[in-house]
C-alpha cells in the first residue's frame, strides 16, 4: 500500500520548501498511478464500466424447430421431422446455419442448450437383435469453433432436454454449432406404417430450442 503522506506537519517544526514539494510529489505519484490497493471496494458497477468488461451473454429462446431434415411425408398424426427417409446419420447440425458469439474477449465460456425432443423408441430391439446396445436416443452436442463444448447421449423418449458445458476459448468471434445424433435404423424396422397417403414413420424431432452462452472474462 502506498502512503500519500511523506511529511506530516507537526506543531513547532520548521517549514521548508521540501515540506511542500515532497508532499505534493507524493500525492502526484499516488493519484496519477492508482493501483488496485488504492481504489476503494465496490467502486465499479455496470453503470461505470465498459460494456462486456467482465461478462457477456448471448441468448436466443426462439430458436424454434430443428431444420436439419424435414420429411413432409410423415404420418398425419406426427411431426414433419426426421425420418429414416431423410438419410440423416451421424452428427449433423440441428440448424441450417451456425450461431456466432460476436466479440468474445477470451476466457471461460458457459453454454447451455435446451428444448424438447421427440424420439420414436419402439423398435429398439427387433428380431435377432438380442442385445441392443441401448434404446434409441437423440444425442446432443455443442461445438464451439469445431471443438466439443459438451456432448451427451441425450434422450430416448418424447421429453425435455438440457445440455450444459463450460470451456476456455481464445478471444475472437466464436462459431457455435448445435448438433444432434440419431440412432441408425435397424434392419428389421418398418419405415412406413399402414396408412393412406403419407406413411413415413417419424423418428426424431427437436423443438422449443433455446440457447444461452455466458462469456466470463475474469
Amino acid at each position: 500500500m502506498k502512503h500519500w503522506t511523506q511529511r506530516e506537519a507537526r506543531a513547532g517544526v520548521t517549514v521548508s520548501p521540501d515540506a511542500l514539494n515532497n508532499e505534493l510529489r507524493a500525492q502526484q505519484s499516488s493519484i496519477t498511478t492508482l493501483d488496485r490497493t488504492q481504489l476503494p471496494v465496490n467502486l465499479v458497477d455496470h453503470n461505470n464500466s465498459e460494456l462486456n468488461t467482465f461478462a457477456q451473454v448471448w441468448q436466443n429462446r426462439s430458436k424454434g424447430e430443428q431444420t436439419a431434415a424435414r420429411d413432409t411425408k410423415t404420418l398425419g398424426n406426427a411431426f414433419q421431422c426426421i425420418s429414416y427417409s431423410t438419410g440423416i446419420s451421424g452428427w449433423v447440425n440441428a440448424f441450417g446455419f451456425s450461431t456466432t458469439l460476436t466479440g468474445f474477449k477470451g476466457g471461460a465460456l458457459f453454454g447451455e442448450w435446451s428444448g424438447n425432443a421427440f424420439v420414436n423408441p419402439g423398435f429398439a430391439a427387433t428380431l435377432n437383435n438380442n442385445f441392443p446396445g441401448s434404446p434409441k436416443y437423440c444425442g446432443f452436442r455443442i461445438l464451439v469453433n469445431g471443438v466439443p463444448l459438451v456432448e451427451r447421449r441425450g434422450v430416448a423418449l418424447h421429453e425435455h432436454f438440457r445440455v450444459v458445458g463450460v470451456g476456455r476459448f481464445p478471444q475472437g468471434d466464436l462459431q457455435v454449432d448445435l448438433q444432434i445424433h440419431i440412432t441408425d435404423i435397424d434392419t428389421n424396422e418398418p419405415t412406413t406404417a399402414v396408412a393412406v397417403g403419407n406413411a413415413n414413420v417419424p423418428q426424431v424431432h427437436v423443438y422449443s430450442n433455446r440457447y444461452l452462452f455466458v462469456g466470463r472474462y475474469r
Partner: protein
Amino acid sequence: MSRINRGRITDGQDITASDLNDRFDDYSQAGALNAFNVRDAAIDLPQVKADWFARDSYEATLGEFSLDHTSVNTVTASSSTPPAAGHIVQDFGGTASVLNFGLSGVTIGTGDVLRVYWDLSVNPTYNGTPWTAIGALGQYVFNNTVAGTTTVATSGNVWVLYPQWDITSSALTNFVDVPGQSDFTTNYTGSLYGNTLAQCEATTVIPAWVQFFADASDGKVNASKLYDSRIGWRGVSGAWHYSGLATTVYGMRWIIRGLLHPDQNANVNYLAYDTVAGGQGSPNPQLEYTSGKASAIIMRLG
C-alpha cells in the same frame, strides 16, 4: 501516463500566493486522473460490486415435498373439447406455487436477461391401453408378422408444463402466458386444439407412457411382443429466457395440461390435445406430482 510537471521551489526562493495556487490547481484540474493514469489491472474483483455477474436471483418451491409419495397432487387428462382449463401447480392445500419477485417486482431492462429454470417430480399414470382407442392421436398401425395389422402406441403422448407471469401488479391476479408460449387452446382444425411448435418456447414435455415392440421382423410388428411401460417417478426440468422490451415482473407460476400429441396441419407442426386417449381408462390418464424448484437469475447481457 500523464504526469504533472512543474519546477520545484528551491531553497531561498520566495513563495508567493500564486506559486501555491498554481501547484494546488495542478492537482485539482479536471481529468488529471484518467484511464492512462490508472495502472494496468487496477480494477480487480474487490473494486467491482457484487452484483456484476447476476443482479438478482430468486427461488421458490413448486408443489410440496413428499419423499415417499404418500401425498401427491393429481392432474387428470382432459377429455373434452375445447379442453379443460390447465392445472396450476400448487401445494397439497391447494395454494398456488408462485415464484414471487416482491412488492415492487423486478424490472428486466433492455440490457438484461431473465433466466428461469424449473424442475418437478412427476409420475404419469394410465390404465389399459389408451392409445388403442378409435380416434386417438397416439397410435400407429403396422403390418404384423401374421398377415394382419396391429395398433401400437406412438409413445408421443405427453403432459406439458409451462410458466405464466404477472407483469401488472404484486397482487398476482393477472397471470398470462409468457412471451413465446400459448395455452394449447387454439382450435386449428376440426376438433383439434393445440399450439404450433413456435408457440411452445417455454414448454416442458413429460412423456405419458412408452411402448416397445420386440422382435419386429422384415418391417412387421410381432403382435405378441408388445411391451408397454409406465414412465414412473422422475424429475423433469425446463428453462426459459426473456430479453427484450423493459418489463417489470411480479411473479411466475406454472401450468400443467394433458394429454397432448404431435400433429401436423398444412405443413405446420403442432402439439395437439389427444382428448380421445385422455378419456380412456378408469381413472383417465393422470399426472401425479410432488415438489420441485423454480429459480430465476437476472443478468446483464453485457
